[in-house]
Each structure stands twice: as C-alpha cells, then as structure tokens.
C-alpha cells in the first residue's frame, strides 16, 4: 500500500513537470513576441541570445502606429470584423431558424445547398470569386472584403442544430396569441439563443480577424489593407524593423487574447460544442 502510494505521487509529480514544461513551450513564442517588441532592432536576432531586452525600447508601438498605415490597417480590420459579424449573425440565425422550425417545399434542398458550401472554403474559389467581385466593381471596397468573409455554412448549420432543440410548443403558444412570425423570432427565439450566438460570434470573429488570403487579394490599395495583410507585407526600405513588426503582431493578437482570458470558458466550450455537433 505504501509503495503504491509513493509510486503514485512520483507519477503525479512527473505529470505536473511534463505538463508545465510543454505549457512553457506552448506559451514561449507568444512571450518571445511580446519581449521582442520591446527590444531594439539590433537585439532581436543578436548573438549571444537575450531573452529579456538588454535595453527596453518603448518606442516600437508608437513608431508602428505613427508610421501611418498601421493605425489605418487596424481600423480597417475592426470595420471588416464588425460588418462581417453582423451579416454573419443575421444570416445564420434567420436561415438556421427557418431551416429548423418551418416545413416548406425545397427546405431540404436549401439545407443541402448550404451544407455543400462547407466543401468550398475561400481558398478553393479565390480566383473566380475575385473575378465576380471585380465584375461587381467591388475590388478595393469594404463591401468586397466583407461580404465573402461574412458567409459561413458551418454557422448556419450550428444555428439550425440549436433551433432544432428548441421546443415547438414555445412558438406555438405565441402563434395562438396571434404573434407574427418575425415577432416570435425576435422576441422569443433570439433571446433564448444568446449562448449559441455568443459561440457563433467567437468562432466566426476569429475566422474574420485572422483571415489573410481574401483581404490580401481583394484590397490592393494600401489604405484598405487589413491588419493581417499589413503584418505580412510589412518591411522597411533597406531593412525590416523587427520590433515594429512584432509590435504590430502583438497589437493584432491582444484583443483576442484578452477576450480569451475573460471568456476562455466560452472559447473552450464552443470548440467542444462544434466538435460534438460537427
């Protein structure tokens, strides 16, 4: 019994050490990114390696934003995010609700059609999509960036599954009281789906905020670039100022990381949920 117990504590200690060590590896690049943004250019890749900045450089953030476009890129990313999310939540909730709660001709066809778009992510159709957007004269416009990023077959699926679990009696009762369909949707269905909508928003906002390919292709003018494009294409005239580039990277990550720290349960539960439902 005694031997068994010591064995178990030793095992537990080793487990903790291994988990903590890998945890450090998982965190390290992010920490290095933050520390690097406070170094001077010569210290970022210097030998011998210095983890902490030998001299702290607090100007890199100011420089990155003062360099003009970066503030603009940030603003563009926020604009794209907000509008893409609004369109995404509206389309996913309405169509998910319609597909789950109404019986009409062609419903299954519509559902299959939307599900089939899971097989065509933006990477697959980037060329014809660009052709379409340019025919619509939407290249180098916010609408051109936003609309393709706001559609998500998976989001529709998620909301449809959610509304499917809402009991029909709840809606039937309101119908008997003479409430209109849109009124029922707004006053009953939306309020009870808050948690699902938060999960959808967290899920989709990461997609929009992190997307590089589409804004890279469709916004060729500097003043329409998003953060991700700005970070990827950032370089100086004669050399790349690393601390500024890292400062941009940190600034791009910070909003999601802060959100994650406060809402980590939603992030993790949302992921687990997409797993179970998907």
């Amino acid at each position, binding site marked *: 019994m005694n031997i068994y117990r010591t064995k178990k504590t030793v095992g537990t200690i080793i487990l903790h050490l291994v988990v903590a060590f890998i945890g450090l590896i*998982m965190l390290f690049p992010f920490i290095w990114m933050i520390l690097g943004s406070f170094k001077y250019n010569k210290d970022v890749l210097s030998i011998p390696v210095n983890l902490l900045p030998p001299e702290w450089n607090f100007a890199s953030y100011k420089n990155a934003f003062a360099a003009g476009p970066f503030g603009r890129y940030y603003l563009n990313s926020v604009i794209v995010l907000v509008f893409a999310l609004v369109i995404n939540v509206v389309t996913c909730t309405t169509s998910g609700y319609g597909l789950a709660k109404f019986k009409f001709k062609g*419903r299954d066809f519509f559902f299959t059609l939307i599900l089939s*778009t899971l097989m*065509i992510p933006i990477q697959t159709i980037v060329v014809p999509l660009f052709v*379409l957007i340019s025919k619509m004269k939407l290249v180098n416009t916010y609408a051109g960036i936003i*609309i393709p990023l706001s*559609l998500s077959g998976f989001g*529709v699926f998620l909301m449809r599954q959610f509304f499917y679990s809402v009991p029909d009696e709840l809606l039937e009762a309101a119908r008997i009281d003479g409430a209109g369909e849109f009124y029922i949707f707004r006053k009953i269905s939306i309020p009870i789906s808050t948690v699902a909508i938060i999960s959808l928003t967290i899920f989709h906002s990461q997609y929009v905020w992190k997307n590089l390919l589409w804004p890279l292709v469709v916004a060729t003018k500097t003043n329409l670039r998003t953060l991700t494009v700005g970070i990827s294409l950032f370089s100086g005239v004669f050399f790349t100022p690393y601390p500024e580039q890292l400062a941009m990277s940190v600034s791009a990550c910070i909003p999601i990381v802060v959100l994650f720290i406060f809402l980590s349960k939603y992030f*993790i539960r949302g992921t687990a949920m997409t797993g179970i439902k998907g």
Partner: protein
Amino acid sequence: MKKNSHSRAGYFFVVPTVILFCVFLIFPMLNSFRLSLYSWNIMEPMKWVGLDNFKTLFQDKEFLASWGRTLQFTLTSVVLLLIVSFIFALMLDSRSLKSRNLFQAVYFIPVVLVTPAVGVVWKLMFQTTGILNAGIFAPIFGATVPWLESQNIALYSIMLVQLWISSGYYMVMFIAGLQGIPEEYYESAVIDGASWFRRLFSITIPLLKPVFLLVFVTSVLFVFGQFALPYTISQGGPNYATELMTLFIYRNAFKYLKVGYASTASIFYFLTMIVFSIIQIRLFSDKKKR
C-alpha cells in the same frame, strides 16, 4: 390555412441567405469550370483555349510537385496532430493534475493568436541567429538547423508551426470526448486489474473512435487550406520547397495574372478535397456497420 401561412414564412427566413450563398460561393465554384477553358489575364478579352489549361497543368512539374507537397503536408500534419492533441488531452484531463482549467487555457493560447503574426514570430525564431538555433541547438548540440534554408527541412518547420497553432484546438475536442466516457468503465477495469495501458487501448481509444474521425475530418479540411503560414514564414521558398497548392494558385492568379490556368488548378484542388471527403465518408459508414 394557418399552417400554410406559417410554412410560407420559412421562405422569408431562408431564401435571402440562400441567395447570398449561391451568388458568392456556389456560382464562383461553377464559374471556375468555365474560366478554366480560357486564357485570360483580366485586362485583355478572354481567349478560348479549350482543354489546353488542363494539358499544361498535367505537364507542369511545379504544379505536380506542389500537389504532392500539399498531400504530404496535410497527411503528415494531421497524423501528428491526432497523436499530439490526443496525448495532450490525456495529460490535461488526468484526475491527478491540479489546475486543469488553467493548463487547458495555456495550451489553447496558440489557437487564438493571429496566424500571420504567428508566422512572423516563427520566421524570426527559425533564423540562424534566432532563438531556436542560437539559444537551444547551438549551445546544446553544437550545430544549427537550417530550418528555412534547407529544401528538405523547410516544409517540416512549417508543419511544426501548424502543430503548435492547432494542437490545443483538437485537444479540447478530445477532452470533451474523454469526459463523455462513463467513470464506471474504468472502475470495473481497475477492479479486474487492468493496467493503465490496457485501459487506454481497450476502453479509451475504442470509445473515442468517433472523436478521432471527427478530428481527422476537420483537421484535413483546415490544414489542406493552409495559406498564411507558408506565405508569411517562407513565401513558398526555398526554391518552392514550401509552396502549397494555395500558394501556387495565388501566385499564378495574382502575380502572373493567369486567371484561366489558376482556375484549372483550383478545380484540382477542389477535386482532391472531394476525394478526401469520400474516403472520410467511407470511414464513417464503416464505423456505423460495426
């Protein structure tokens, strides 16, 4: 009568979204078949070339190499992801681990970071004087690794980053699966004297089969479409060693303005994905039969 009007309301909820999906996703997909029959640089009028793009594509060594590379990248990354995220899940769901939630959150952090920012950071860390070489490999092993300079290694370096950014995500899926296994199964196995490994292979892994399949399906789709990592870390280099199909399509369409040719490549990209899905559907239906 009532029933009828109630059903019709369904169209108002569904049709606007369906139209958006048709215009911006399904129509472009179909249109890529038409575009693949033309030679077109966007500025000049389109020129009909029939199946020439397909002929060129099959003889294009760059394309074939990029196709094979994408398969290699996807399959290797996915297998590694399955193993690593499953091991992470076993460790972080363990009863004997304290502050499990904190550790799970830490392992999840790379998932939420912005991909191009991650690419920039790893690109710097991979340099000869970067932290990996100058901080770890040179002092401990006395040699540096040409992470991004070697054509044989660069693709694996990007796989490493892919693994780093997504293992936390799939770990969470596995943890959800682990928590769905009833405790009694393990208890009776312990009473029967089953070792930890025995329990792992006779209870945990068989019961998690649906989760393994799910992780496989989702990660294949995700990794197959990877663009931002190779674009920011290596720009497809050195000598195209990390040029995945997404980069090939991007380069041909938007650098060389070969719209028709890039559409043809997109069709193959799409067909490869379809084949992947058919294999996956097979795996799923096999599961059901048992």
